[in-house]
Every structure is written in C-alpha cells, then in structure tokens.
C-alpha cells in the first residue's frame, strides 16, 4: 500500500496482527457473486466501514508464461486468447505486434486496417460488458447486463464469421491475419457500427442521469493523480483522473495516426468518472471504426514472406505495447534464436490496476468495495495469468 502525505484522509490503518474484538473479519471469498471471477478480499470491517483490505489472488494461475517458453511462437498465440477472455483479439494483436517488432516483419496495409477494426470492436465489447457488470455489482441485476450482452452478441457473431470462434479468436499471425474477410463482412460491420450509436444513447439515458447511480458512484474510490501515476495505473482509470496518457496517441502503433479521434479525460477520477470515460471512449471507438471501414483497402491479408512453421526470430529482445480496453497491455519477448522464446512476459493491466484497491477502499463501506472493484474492471484470466 503506497502511503504518502497526499492521502485525502487518514483512516485508521490496522497494524498487522493488532486485533480488536469489535472488528469483523469478512472474507469476500473466491466464491462470491460479485468478484468477477475467483478473487478474494480479506476485509476487516469496523461496523460497515472498511479498516483493512488484503486482496488474495492466484486461484486462476495457469502458468501461462512458463508454458510459452516450452512451445513455439505460433503455438502460444491461442493461449493469449485466454489472458483477458473478454477481449481476446487485442491480446492477439499485442503478442503479434511484439513478435513482429522482434523479428522485423512488415504488415501489409489491409491487415493493419483489419487489426484496427477488430481491436476497436473488442474495445466496444469490453466497455459494454463493463456497464453490465458495474450495474450488476450495484444491484440492478440483469437489466443493463442483458442489454449489454445483447449488443455484445452481435459483435461476437461478426467475430465468429471472420475468425471461426466467438471469443477464442486465435486470429492474428506474425505479419498479418489468419484469413481474409469473408464476403459481406465489412458491410455487416458498418451496419453494426451505425446501430451502435442509438444503443449507446439508450444506455446513457438509462445510466447517466440515474440519481441512485450518482449517489452510489460519486466520490467513491477517488485517488489523487500522483498516487495513480506512482501505482503504475494505465487505461480508463488513469484517464478518469485527468492524466492524458493513451498509447494510441502517446506512442502510435499500427496505423492509428491516420485516424482522427480524441481522448476523453475526467477530472475527479472516482467511480462515476470511470463509467463516463468508458462511455465517451466507446463513442470515439465508433468514430475510428467508421473511418477504418471507409478506408479499408484491398490487397494481401498477410505478409507472404512470413513463415508459419519453424519460425525462428533472430536473437534479441523486444517489448511492444498496445492500448487495450483495460490499459497498457505489453508483451516482452527475449529470443535466443531457437523455435521457442527464451523469456515471455506479459504486462497485465488488470493486475497492475488492482494493486491500489486497498488505497481506494479504506474508510468506505462494504458496498463501495464491490463497486470500486467493479470500476477497476479486472478479468481474473489476466490478473493470475
């Protein structure tokens, strides 16, 4: 826990081991309806206010990085789908981006456009599902979730037509994509992008003015900018506090310079701002999708010279990062010239955004802890790897 003078309040932090019989030790256990998967928090409550909160995770650890050292570069591509299983295609792109940087493979135009379209569609899925989950945590179980999942289904159908599987896409290859867009896919996608605007208006009418949501989310889980930056927080959580840091603009990768889009910034950084920032980001993604679909060129979907089997990148090291829906998703690869990587490291945004959970929750209620965890938007596949 990062304790520095800039803390907004000095809630009594429980010294480890000091116990008072009036305190209530509650374990929001791995098997709990609102912890987004197997994640446990040992919360010490004084009445209803949180005195100390120790996160416990690792229940979903699948040894992803050690397995990657044992299999070929191509074979660990399907495993990247399982990292953040809400947005598999942006994980694929991050991994392919890292290997291309390592081996110096260029990507043809059409593949770059396809990657941008798929990444922005994944961002839409993630933020829409986020709205559903945060409302579920707050108690409106079902309504917002079902509306979000109805729209998500339409996008997943598009992914199934293109990549063959709704979620486990395994679609990117080093130097482009696995197969070309089937006939009529681009038209279906632009129809979906046009219908998404009205859906977002409906969701905003449903959520933004809702007094209960205002009361529950405003000034909850607020941290000053310095603490967020010190904690290494990236993504919508950081931008909600007003820090202008989006990798698509800070270090443009792929062909993001060609599209004109803006980065929404909040001013207080509490749960309400995080929800609003995600709404505005969805609007920006729609703009990018519209431009990318209009400029989609013809041509090869993969670099013909890229080898599929026995791909041996040169000895060396590369770190490539993309702006995933949850934050900066980075892959650090060290290659010793053989078929399998020497070291394969994932920079998981959910895991790093989770480290400041206790700082946000001190002094608040048990009900707020659940919403703050929801507003960080973690996926346990990425937290535990």
């Amino acid at each position, binding site marked *: 826990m990062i304790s520095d003078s800039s803390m907004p309040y000095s809630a009594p932090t429980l010294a480890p081991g000091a116990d008072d019989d009036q305190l209530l030790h509650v374990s929001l256990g791995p098997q709990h*309806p609102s912890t987004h998967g197997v994640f446990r928090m040992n919360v010490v409550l004084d009445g209803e206010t949180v005195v100390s909160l120790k996160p416990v995770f690792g229940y979903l650890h699948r040894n992803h990085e050690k397995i990657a050292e044992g299999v070929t570069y191509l074979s660990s591509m399907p495993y990247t789908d399982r990292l953040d299983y809400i947005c598999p295609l942006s994980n694929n792109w991050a991994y392919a981006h890292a290997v291309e940087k390592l081996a110096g493979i260029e990507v043809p135009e059409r593949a770059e456009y396809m990657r941008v379209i798929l990444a922005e569609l994944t961002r839409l899925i993630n933020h829409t599902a986020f709205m559903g989950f945060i*409302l579920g945590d707050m108690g*409106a179980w079902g309504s917002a979730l079902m509306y979000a999942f109805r729209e998500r289904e339409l996008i997943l159908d598009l992914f199934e037509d293109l990549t063959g599987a709704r979620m486990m896409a395994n679609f990117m290859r080093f130097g482009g994509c696995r197969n070309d867009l089937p006939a009529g896919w681009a038209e279906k996608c632009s129809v979906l992008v046009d219908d998404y605007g009205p859906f977002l208006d409906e969701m905003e009418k449903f959520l933004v003015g809702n007094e209960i949501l205002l009361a*529950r989310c405003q*000034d909850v889980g607020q941290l000053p900018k310095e603490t967020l930056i010190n904690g290494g927080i990236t993504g919508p959580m950081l931008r909600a506090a*007003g820090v202008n840091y989006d990798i698509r603009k800070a270090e443009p990768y792929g062909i993001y310079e060609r599209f004109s889009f*803006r*980065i929404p*910034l909040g001013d207080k950084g509490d749960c309400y701002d995080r929800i609003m920032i995600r709404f505005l980001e969805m609007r920006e993604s729609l703009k990018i999708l519209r431009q990318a679909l209009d400029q989609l060129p013809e041509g090869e979907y993969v670099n013909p010279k890229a080898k599929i089997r026995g791909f041996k990148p040169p000895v060396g090291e590369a770190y490539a990062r993309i702006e995933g829906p949850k934050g900066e998703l980075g892959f650090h690869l060290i290659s010793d010239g053989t078929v399998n990587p020497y070291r394969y490291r994932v920079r998981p945004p959910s895991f790093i955004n989770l480290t400041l959970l206790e700082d946000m929750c001190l002094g608040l209620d048990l009900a707020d802890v659940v919403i703050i965890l929801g507003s960080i938007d973690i996926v346990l596949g990425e937290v535990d790897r």
Partner: protein
Amino acid sequence: MNLFAAISTEPALWSPEWLPRLPQRLVEMLLGFLGAPEWLVSIAGFLVAAGTVVGVFLGGFALLSLIERKTLARIQNRIGPNRAGWFGILQPVADGIKMLTKEDIVPAKAEKFLHLLAPILIVVPAILALGVIPYGREWTPVSLELGLLFFFAVGSLTELSVFIAGWASGSKFPMLGAMRAISQMVSYELPLIISALGVVMVSGTLSLPLIVEQQGGFHLGFIPAWNLFTPWGFFAGILFFICSIAEANRCPFDLPEGESEIVAGHMTEYSGFKYALFFMGEYLGLFAISALGITLFLGGWQAPLPGLGFLPSWIWFFGKLAIVIFMFLWIRGTYPRVRIDQLMRFAWLCMIPMALLTLPAAGIWTILNRDGHGFLAWAITVPLLLIPCVIVTVIFNRRLASANRTYRFAE
C-alpha cells in the same frame, strides 16, 4: 328450517358479488342442515373464510413468483421460464417441489429452535395482516373497528423475526444482514405510519371498510373520489408507496439480502423449505402492504368510472393490486441498490419531514371541506405541499452543480 331462511334473506348463492364468500356460506348451510350447534357453525364458517383468504393469496404467491420472473425477463428482452408446463405455468409447482426436496441444512453454531422459529414468524404476520383488508363490498374477512392499528401492530413483528433469523444463523453475513434489515425497517416504519395517519384524519375512523366507503362517489362526474386525487393524498400516496418498497425489502432498498455484498443477508444460512418460507413471507408482505396502499389511497374496491357498478366489486381491488405489484416489478428491473447510509439519510432527512408535512395539509383539507370552502382548501394545501418540493429541487440542483463533471478531450 334455517336452510331456507339462509337462502331467502341473503342475495342469491351464485351472485358474483358474493362469490368470495361462497365457500363460507356453503359450509354454514351444510352444517346448519346437519343441525350442528350455532357456535360450531360460526366457527366453521369463520375458519373457511380465513381458508379462502390464505388460499387466494398462496395461489397469488405462486403466480407472482412466475409473473415476476416473466416480467423481469421481458424487461431484459428474454422470454422467461416457459419449459415447465404451458408457458411456464407449472414453474411455481416445480420450484415448490425443488424447495421441498432440497436438504435442509442447519449450521452447527446455529440455535436450533430460533433458527426454525424465524421463517414462521415472518409468514404469520403477513397472513394476519391480509385478513383485515376489505377486498370487496361484502367481503372483509375480519372487519375490525381498529383495522389499520391491527395491520401496523402485526406488521411490526417482521422486524423481530428478521433479527431472530440473522442472530440464530450464527455466522457473519446473516449478522450484517440482520443489522441492516432492522435499521431499514425501523426507520421506514415511521413515515409509513405517518402517511397513513393522513387518511385516518380525513376519514375519521381506523376501520378499513369505512375508509373505503368514504372514497366512493365521483367529483365532476368522472374523477373518482379516491384519496389519491386530493393534493395531500397524492403526496401521502407517493410517500406510502416508497416506504412500502422499503418495508417489503424490494429493489432500490433491498439491502438486507444485497447479494452482491453480503450474499443473502439474514437468509444465507437457510435452505430447503425454510428458505421458501422466507420468500413466501416476503411476497405475502408485498401483497399485504400494497393491499393496504390500495385501501387507503386507491379506494379499495371502488370502481374507477361511474358506469361500472354491475361488475362485482372485488374485481377492481385485484385489478389495482395487479397494477401496483407491476410497479414493484418494474422498479425492481430498473434500479440499482442504495447504500446503507444513504438509505438512512433518505429516510430521516427526507421521508419523515415530508410525511409530517402531509398531516397539517390533511387537517386543513378536512376542516375547510367540512365548512364547504372547497376552492380555499385546494388554494392552501397545494402551495403548502409544493414549497418543500421546490426547496428540495433547489438544494438538489445546487449539489448536482457542484458535483457536475466536465470532461475535456485531449487531441
């Protein structure tokens, strides 16, 4: 031969108005025919009347558990249970069998007897309260002279049973749930009773059938003279509706069993039929509180339009009950949960003062109307009630403005 006497004095056996009392009259005639003593006949008749009330509302409970899932499903663009029976009609039966066959686990640290007592103590007051509501012109199972007082006396027993459920389960989450439930119920009982006081002050009696009779007749030909269409009545009716949501632990205020925070509140350690009893208690409580709301503000079994006298009166009661319960379901499908301290602040700082305000308004209304100054009554009560609303709007907007968020866009 009192058999024929029974027929000649009262209206025809099969008249629709008397349909709800049919089982009772049949049993009385049968026993009378068999020559049973007078007190036995009255007791048997009374028991059968109580039986019809329990039967109707248990059937209503089963139906409501299905209708709730169907309406929530429709709100969420789903279809809802349609596998058990035709259009899911047998779903309540399936749930009932499931609840009966599930193993009934009692935690080791629980106090056995109290653990068993709690669900019973939740269902009993709800059924008692249902016995005193006038469902039709001829059908008030128990027409007490202190009907309203009886309703609130019995209604307050549920807090005790929620505590027993929370305490007897022995583990942490039920304790938290019980703490929340009691503080919520205690602080929302007050505005509930105060807003009901307005009606008592206007109609001058505590007996529910009389209250409904006084809401008969029509203003200007087609506006029914229900309490809801008077300034103070509209105000008190809305407060009553909000408090009944909190009293029945329904959606925006369903803190005690907030599943995303403390799993299932005081019901966590229950399984099998005891868990079903809790649900029955909750739904019957919902029926009771909305039935009372209809009796006090929506004119119980009074017909909404003048020309509809020929239909039996209890149809209107159950029609209004369906509408009010649909409002509960609609709200359940829409709103997230309120936090515990906001719930308390809302009750003590907003609901109780507003409820206290309806009392003088109702008082002025009755006095002025009794002296015939109808227009003056409106002229005084409407501004009297609207001023605090304006004040609340100003405060709310000022606070909203300070909490307003400006979102910059970096290029």
